[in-house]
């Protein structure tokens, strides 16, 4: 098994270096920076894989391999989109480094996940504090009031709140015995989703609901709860369509983006044009025009990948995500106790819903909501959170394997 992992990693280094090499020659003159970036991210993967496989051989190595490969797509794309001003790429690669460092730290120092079960009220208080903090301290960036500025660092508390919500809900599922309990334990979740709608952070609200419903179903395997949760959510959604103007705008753009193509729907129209331009094989790295999409390095990075890598490259990325989620669920199957199992399910479903909401949004399958693509989009707090959740998963997979080998 170890030999195969090494061959896969070698091919990943090769493709990363090839992509960065292509970037270094594609803007008219030969540029050394992409090559340096490519080598440094490869060195980062080498060292992290070495530490994980050497000191923690029981855990699942594919979590790290897949996520770092996905991150390479993001780094390449962010450099390509900001080639004139590479500060963003340098920032992103430092976030990647910090993320890997935090991941290592968690794998080494985190105690058994089941010890976290007792603190469930702490988690929900932290979640609600984080979410409501933006209402008071937050400032509005791009229409959503979900950012907090600490020094020169902008962060999105809802990213971190997701993980705390998972920790809370995993511990409270075992108290659900009947319908009344289910309602009682779900109230904090609905408060969080309501706060997110107030902050106009609809994507995060959707993800919270997705995590909640997946964990509820897997924890209780009672279809009745799911049905009532969906009904409550539908009512809430229809009500918020009529109450909040920003929800209405999003839905209207989704139904007919070309009617608003010079105004509010400009972004999604450009995204659709870019995806169409890519075709099957894409325009080639550095040869498309993804810069016409506003905010392309952030929420719409998937459209840029579609344009330059084509349908084949984009579906490869989606397949990589599917494999990552599969590995997460596999961790849940092998976990030793119910709490870590539910946490693993929560984290995997968080990744899955996030990917679905972003990719569905930019391809106009569901209404567009501004959230980041895990491991790919530019952004520190999202990168950090994804690596933290990965570290927790890795820890669970490691303690889960003890009984099996």
């Amino acid at each position, binding site marked *: *098994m170890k030999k*195969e992992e090494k*061959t*896969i990693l070698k*091919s*990943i280094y*090769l*493709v990363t270096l*090839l*992509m960065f090499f*292509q970037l270094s*020659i*594609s803007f*008219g003159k030969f540029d050394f920076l992409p090559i340096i970036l490519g080598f440094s991210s490869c060195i980062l993967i080498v060292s992290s894989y070495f530490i994980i496989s050497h000191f923690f051989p029981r855990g699942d190595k*594919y979590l790290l*391999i*897949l996520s770092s*490969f996905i991150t390479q797509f993001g780094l390449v794309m962010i450099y390509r989109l900001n080639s004139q001003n590479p500060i963003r790429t340098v920032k992103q690669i430092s976030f990647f480094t910090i993320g890997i460092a935090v991941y290592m730290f968690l794998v080494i120092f985190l105690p058994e996940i089941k010890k976290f079960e007792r603190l469930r009220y702490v988690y929900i208080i932290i979640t609600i504090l984080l979410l409501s903090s933006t209402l008071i301290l937050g400032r509005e960036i791009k229409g959503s009031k979900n950012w907090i500025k600490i020094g020169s660092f902008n962060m999105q508390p809802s990213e971190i709140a997701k993980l705390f919500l998972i920790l809370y809900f995993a511990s409270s599922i075992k108290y659900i015995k009947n319908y009344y309990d289910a309602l009682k334990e779900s109230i904090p979740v609905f408060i969080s989703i309501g706060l997110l709608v107030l902050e106009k952070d609809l994507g995060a609200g959707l993800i919270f609901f997705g995590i909640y419903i997946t964990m509820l179903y897997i924890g209780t395997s009672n279809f009745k709860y799911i049905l009532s949760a969906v009904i409550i959510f539908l009512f809430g959604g229809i009500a918020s369509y009529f109450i909040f103007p920003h929800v209405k705008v999003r839905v209207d753009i989704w139904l007919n983006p070309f009617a608003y193509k010079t105004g509010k729907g400009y972004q999604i129209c450009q995204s659709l044009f870019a995806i169409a331009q890519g075709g099957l*094989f*894409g*325009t*080639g*790295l*550095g*040869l498309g025009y993804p810069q016409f999409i506003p905010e392309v390095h952030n929420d719409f990075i998937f459209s840029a990948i579609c344009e*330059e*890598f*084509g349908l*084949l*490259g984009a579906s*490869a990325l989606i*397949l*990589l995500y599917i*494999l990552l989620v*599969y590995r997460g669920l596999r961790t849940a199957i092998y976990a030793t106790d119910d709490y870590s199992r539910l946490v693993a399910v929560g984290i995997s479903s968080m990744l899955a819903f996030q990917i679905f909401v972003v990719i569905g949004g930019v391809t106009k399958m569901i209404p567009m909501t501004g959230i980041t693509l895990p491991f790919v989009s530019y952004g520190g707090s999202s990168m950090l959170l994804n690596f933290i959740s990965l570290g927790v998963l890795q820890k669970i997979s490691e303690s889960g394997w003890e009984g099996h080998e």
Partner: protein
Amino acid sequence: MIGYVGFVMKFIVIAIIYIILFRIIKIMYLDLRGIKDRKDVKSFALEVQDAPDSLELSKGSVFPLHTVTNIGRKDDNHIIINDPFISANHATLFIEKGRLFIKDLESTNGTYLNGNKIYDVEEISDGDVIEIGRIIFKVIG
């Protein structure tokens, strides 16, 4: 020139990405098959066919067999039977490569397989009857 290189490179990059994907999926497929194989490993158990009423061993109760299962009167055995006719360490059953064997641990009253006394290691299979002291077990597998 650059456009031409870029045109060729995009196919190479996509090809390598798919090779990586194929390799990863292959390993995961093998892994899934491994899980299935592990469940297919044959498991054996002992069913009590006859036992004296004083021993609190009800007829039909089943003991699952592990890689090594010891039977005897002492507390360090896997199957503990508190019967004076059974030695402290009476017999051992072990599974090797999917085959089940029984060995008598030089017990006082002996171990009988289908009515014959065992002197050394004997292979047993589904349906065999083992007599230990006053108790009769049937092998199910």
